[in-house]
């Protein structure tokens, strides 16, 4: 691709890139042509003539396998964090070491990012996007100190229930496990063995991730591929 054509909006390139590249290959651009292309690019941004295709009809923002990997790794961290926190020793001040909490937060962030990737893919519904956005928004609140962290945690978990139900509604039964796991995770307590409550949600995320990979690998190849 001629470097100047990169200046044009994506929708314009989708429509005209191939034929303009062919034209430029046939007639190498002069300095005047290059300036004309630059002015054309500015015009294409200011007065777009080609409608941008909705993203859901074009490409996903994340490869499905990457979203699945985030679910599996994030789910693993959820489960690991729950176990670490549940078995953590009490410190001199009577509180448990928060190492497990840190691991859970890492898991929350990764699974939320995976949910965003999954929700911004071909054919995803608006409900998918809303729940994924809520998951990520609340996950980011968990980076703030207490009590905002707690608001972030419960918000994220309830948003995960919604995400799981939407997933189940779209035919992925692992989503039901996710919704149940998220409900169990509302009992998560950093100072008792109830920290194990994070484990079912972690395992559910792993199931969702693997279900996605298995589903892709067993679906028939598109015609003409």
């Amino acid at each position, binding site marked *: 691709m001629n470097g100047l054509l990169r200046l044009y909006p994506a929708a*314009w390139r989708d*429509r*005209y890139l*191939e*034929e*303009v*590249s*062919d*034209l*430029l290959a*046939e*007639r190498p*651009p002069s300095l*005047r*042509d290059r*300036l*004309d*292309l*630059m*002015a*054309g*690019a500015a*015009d*294409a941004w200011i007065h777009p*003539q*080609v409608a941008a295709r909705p993203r859901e009809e074009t490409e996903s923002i994340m490869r499905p396998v990457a979203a699945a990997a985030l679910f599996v790794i994030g789910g693993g961290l959820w489960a690991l964090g729950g176990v670490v926190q549940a078995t953590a020793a009490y410190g001199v001040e009577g509180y448990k070491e928060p190492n497990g909490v840190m691991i859970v937060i890492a898991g929350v962030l990764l699974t939320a990012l995976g949910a965003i990737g999954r929700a911004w893919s071909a054919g995803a519904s608006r409900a998918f996007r809303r729940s994924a956005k809520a998951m990520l928004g609340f996950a980011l609140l968990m980076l703030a100190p207490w009590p905002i962290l707690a608001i972030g945690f419960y918000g994220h978990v309830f948003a995960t229930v919604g995400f799981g139900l939407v997933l189940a509604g779209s035919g992925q039964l692992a989503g039901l496990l996710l919704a149940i796991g998220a409900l169990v995770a509302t009992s998560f307590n950093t100072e008792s063995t109830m920290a194990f409550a994070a484990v079912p949600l972690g395992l559910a995320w792993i199931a969702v991730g693997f279900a996605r990979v298995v589903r892709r690998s067993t679906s028939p190849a598109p015609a003409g591929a």
Partner: protein
Amino acid sequence: MNEPLSQLGRFAEPSLYILVSLSGGPRHGYAIMTDVEEMTGSPLGPGTLYGALARLERRGLIEALEPEDRRRPYRLTGLGATTLRAQLAHLQGFLRTGLERLGGDLG
């Protein structure tokens, strides 16, 4: 949507050239460019050409045909032909007036 070409701003003149070029039959971008250069004596830059093509296509004055290799020919639509005819008639009147006045002045 029968908008006069004058509403296309700086793309009005290139658009008229393109419509005249396509009135001789379907052409792809490079062929339009060389044809316009032969007709007018001045080259049409690629940015201007595709800025005008996009506007004409959006307004339904031209339509893209199936690509041949990487080249995509364009052809005049019925609306495009009507618009071009009206535009040329307007220019013809303008031309006649100008020539008459010149003749009067000279005569």
